[in-house]
């Protein structure tokens, strides 16, 4: 028998290998954690800024982002939730997804309303507001929903009329490169600017259609070209917007905010 094949030697090699490897892995993980967190945060901030069309090359992301106000919203009441500090709200995962697992901070969605396959929806969401001279210029709402291969996470930016879209930007998705992943295509994304969400009767009309938008169509201000070869992703984007802009999503908050803005305007007049 080989001298290495004794029980003692096997245990010795096994244990010392595990020790050495675990030290290497943990030091890599701990040593690089801050740098990773920094890049991840920067990536999200740049997506938030770019959804609202605020990203420029002249200023750094940190500088630009400092102009953005962060607030936590309670979706069930539509009010701001000031007991939760927006700075530390992010927690572990993307946009407080952990809150959606906790029964205390989320609601279970019935299958007929769960058009984006979320299963549960968290009650608290962090939103971003961009103001110029104390006047709201853009509201950036995090959205998420199922595409073809997985959940798409992104930001929808709307103007202060709470009906006109500024932009839609995804920061994490698993769609097929060249097909569904064209949600990142700048040309496709540029179509969102100026589209309307609600019809005059308050119905959610915005959607990604199949094929190209007919420039003659009266509905064109609610429609965005479909992604060719990615029907399920396109439908996922539509569903996600209908869900998050609907009653179970931000509708309560947006209605309340609209009243607030109107009240403020009437005072100014």
């Amino acid at each position, binding site marked *: 028998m080989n001298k290495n094949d004794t029980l003692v030697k096997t245990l010795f090699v096994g244990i010392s290998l595990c020790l050495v*490897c675990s030290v290497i892995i943990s030091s890599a993980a701990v040593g690089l954690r801050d740098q990773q967190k920094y890049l991840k945060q920067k990536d999200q901030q740049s997506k938030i800024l770019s959804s609202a069309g605020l990203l420029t090359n002249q200023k750094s992301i940190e500088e630009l982002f400092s102009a953005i106000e962060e607030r936590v919203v309670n979706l069930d009441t539509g009010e701001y939730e000031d007991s939760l500090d927006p700075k530390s709200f992010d927690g572990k995962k993307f946009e407080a997804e952990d809150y959606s697992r906790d029964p205390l901070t989320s609601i279970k969605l019935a299958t007929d309303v769960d058009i984006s396959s979320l299963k549960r929806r968290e009650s608290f969401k962090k939103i971003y507001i961009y103001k110029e001279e104390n006047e709201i210029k853009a509201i950036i709402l995090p959205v998420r929903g199922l595409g073809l291969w997985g959940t798409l996470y992104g930001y929808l930016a709307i103007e202060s009329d709470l009906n006109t879209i500024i932009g839609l930007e995804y920061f994490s998705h698993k769609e097929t*490169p060249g097909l569904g992943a064209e949600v990142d295509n700048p040309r496709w994304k540029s179509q969102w600017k100026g589209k309307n969400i609600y019809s005059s009767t308050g119905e959610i009309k915005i959607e990604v259609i199949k094929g190209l938008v007919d420039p003659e169509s009266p509905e064109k201000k609610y429609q965005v070209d479909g992604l*060719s070869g990615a029907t399920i992703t396109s439908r996922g984007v539509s569903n996600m917007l209908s869900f998050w802009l609907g009653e179970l999503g931000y509708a309560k908050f947006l209605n309340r905010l609209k009243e607030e803005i109107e009240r403020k305007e009437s005072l100014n007049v």
Partner: protein
Amino acid sequence: MSKSREILLNPIFNDNPIALQILGICSALAVTTNLYPTLLMCIALTAVICLSNLVVSVIRNQIPTNVRMIVQITIIASLVVVVDELLKAYDYENSKTIGVFVALIVTNCIVMGRAEAFAMQNGPWLSFLDGLGNGLGYSLILIVVATIREFLGAGTLFGYEILVLTQNGGWYLGNNYMVLSSSSFLIIGLFIWLLRSWKTEQIEEPEYRVARNNLETKEAGTRV
């Protein structure tokens, strides 16, 4: 050709891990839609295979034979985690797309294959060179596949627009087949064909020959 040179250069054309040994195909299909992530993947794999070969070779005389595969996998897996963490810390944007494939380097047959077949029998320096050579052989194929796929599928190279796509207002209609993973099979197949027409010694002997249909001669025989 000196021995170390032979060990380094052989895996590139003469004994290519993908084209001749048909190993590590999975990642060649998955990451090759764009050149830049492909290049990162090649660097990650080459780094892992060099270091795993080196480490395995250094401790090869201490490894008990009955647990040698577990030891190799532990070393490879640890290296992969470190590479993955580094990628996340320095190129977050790309780690989002190729992160999962970097983690799957653990299961890449080339890495384990070289540790078991070469590093267990040879010294550290030669093992390191063998890892480097195989990493380069793997990279060669991936870069060829990615160049063709990105150029025909998206009209770009390294993200720079070369053919302007119709969806961006140009004339080139991107080839959607090149965007899907299965196109890599086609390109790898063509590459192997070219390689074997150049290096005919790589052509494999057919495993069997179809027997000639001799029905006619028999019939002719009965008639006679």
